[in-house]
């Protein structure tokens, strides 16, 4: 369901409907201007046009609802699961009022006006503070002042599907299918994800938020699941670069776009081309749509790229395009070492910054 339709269905819930009966037990508020949002308290994936919080008047957040992935903005929006969230919010509020729910520390408030490039871009021009601009310009500012950590901040919101977890979305955190690392750890369809590294989660929004808190150098994450009457801890092994996500739908100005994708070569292939076996050499598999129009580069599918500015290996990157994303700044021109039809050549790449979407 499209976000705008979902929004309308929620906002216009009849009081007598099941959802309306839940909503009337709340103070409902719909905020459409982000100028004064406390972005520390209401931190979230800012590339969502629709997101919900359930909290109390002490500003203690009980749960989040919403969240998306690379498939689309509505991957986890569902009218059944939002009713589950509304019911859980009421349960948690009762517990809070009865003193059965620990108070959490409120983060120090922070507001969009504290992000200088956002002030220049929107407030100074009296333009709308769009949600994604908050996230984008926060990163731009971090890059400007030298505090940007791309692995944790540009690659925020890692995807649980990379663990092999497919949720039964209408049922909230009920597992529909467990594959790969999740299956190896013992997860089964019908399990209900209850905690991430010991922190309770009630919705996909909670799961995404707390999964993002896992340190990027972690080698496992502990998911606790409810299975029948039992609760089980499942340590799930995190593969290398588990945090890697598709950034293409994001409008990050800090993402240096090189307009190509590649697949890592095998060690045998690297030996064949007489290039470093521990390096990030890769075969170009896709040329971005803007490559020709913006004269970014002249790569072809099938080219072998084995170095960027003379560097052939990296602790994190396993492909040259990832190396560029992690180690270069948007707008940089870099030189690739390329093998085409057995011949070695140098090729400049002018990385792109997503100005035109701002």
């Amino acid at each position: 369901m499209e976000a705008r339709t979902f929004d309308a269905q929620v906002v216009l819930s009849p009081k007598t409907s099941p959802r309306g009966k839940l909503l009337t037990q709340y103070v409902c508020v719909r905020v459409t201007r982000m100028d004064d949002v406390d972005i520390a308290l209401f931190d979230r994936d800012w590339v969502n046009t629709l997101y919900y919080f359930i909290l109390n008047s002490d500003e203690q957040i009980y749960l989040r609802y919403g969240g998306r992935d690379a498939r689309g903005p509505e991957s986890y929006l569902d009218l059944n699961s939002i009713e589950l969230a509304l019911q859980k919010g009421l349960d948690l509020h009762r517990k809070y009022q009865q003193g059965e729910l620990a108070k959490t520390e409120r983060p120090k408030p922070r507001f969009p006006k504290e992000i200088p490039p956002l002030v220049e871009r929107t407030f100074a021009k009296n333009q709308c503070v769009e949600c994604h601009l908050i996230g984008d310009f926060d990163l731009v500012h971090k890059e400007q002042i030298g505090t940007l950590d791309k692995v944790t901040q540009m690659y925020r919101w890692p995807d649980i599907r990379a663990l092999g977890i497919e949720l039964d979305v209408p049922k909230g955190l009920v597992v529909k299918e467990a594959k790969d690392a999740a299956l190896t750890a013992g997860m089964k369809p019908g399990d209900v994800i209850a905690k991430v590294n010991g922190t309770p989660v009630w919705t996909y929004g909670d799961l995404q938020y707390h999964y993002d808190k896992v340190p990027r150098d972690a080698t496992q994450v502990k998911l606790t699941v409810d299975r029948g009457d039992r609760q089980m801890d499942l340590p799930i092994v995190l593969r290398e670069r588990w945090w890697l996500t598709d950034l293409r739908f994001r409008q990050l100005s800090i993402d240096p776009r090189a307009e190509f994708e590649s697949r890592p070569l095998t060690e045998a292939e690297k030996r064949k081309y007489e290039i470093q076996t521990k390096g990030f050499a890769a075969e170009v598999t896709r040329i971005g749509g803007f490559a020709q129009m913006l004269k970014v580069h002249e790569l072809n599918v099938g080219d072998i790229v084995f170095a960027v500015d003379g560097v052939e290996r990296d602790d994190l990157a396993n492909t040259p395009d990832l190396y560029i994303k992690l180690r270069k700044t948007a707008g940089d021109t870099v030189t690739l070492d390329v093998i085409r039809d057995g011949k070695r050549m140098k090729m400049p790449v002018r990385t792109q910054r997503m100005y035109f979407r701002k």
Partner: protein
Amino acid sequence: MRLFKFAVIAGLMSLVSSFPLLAEDDTVEWLSSYKDAIREAKRTQKPIFLEYRCEA
């Protein structure tokens, strides 16, 4: 405190062709101010359901 029905209802309904026409009094009431919501939640002891909607 200012309780009101959304001025955007008509706009939303025009966007959702399949949406049933609802009389205003039949639908849930929403505030548009976070500060008002905090005040109302303190007064009523209700929890808050907060929607952030970034409209293009």
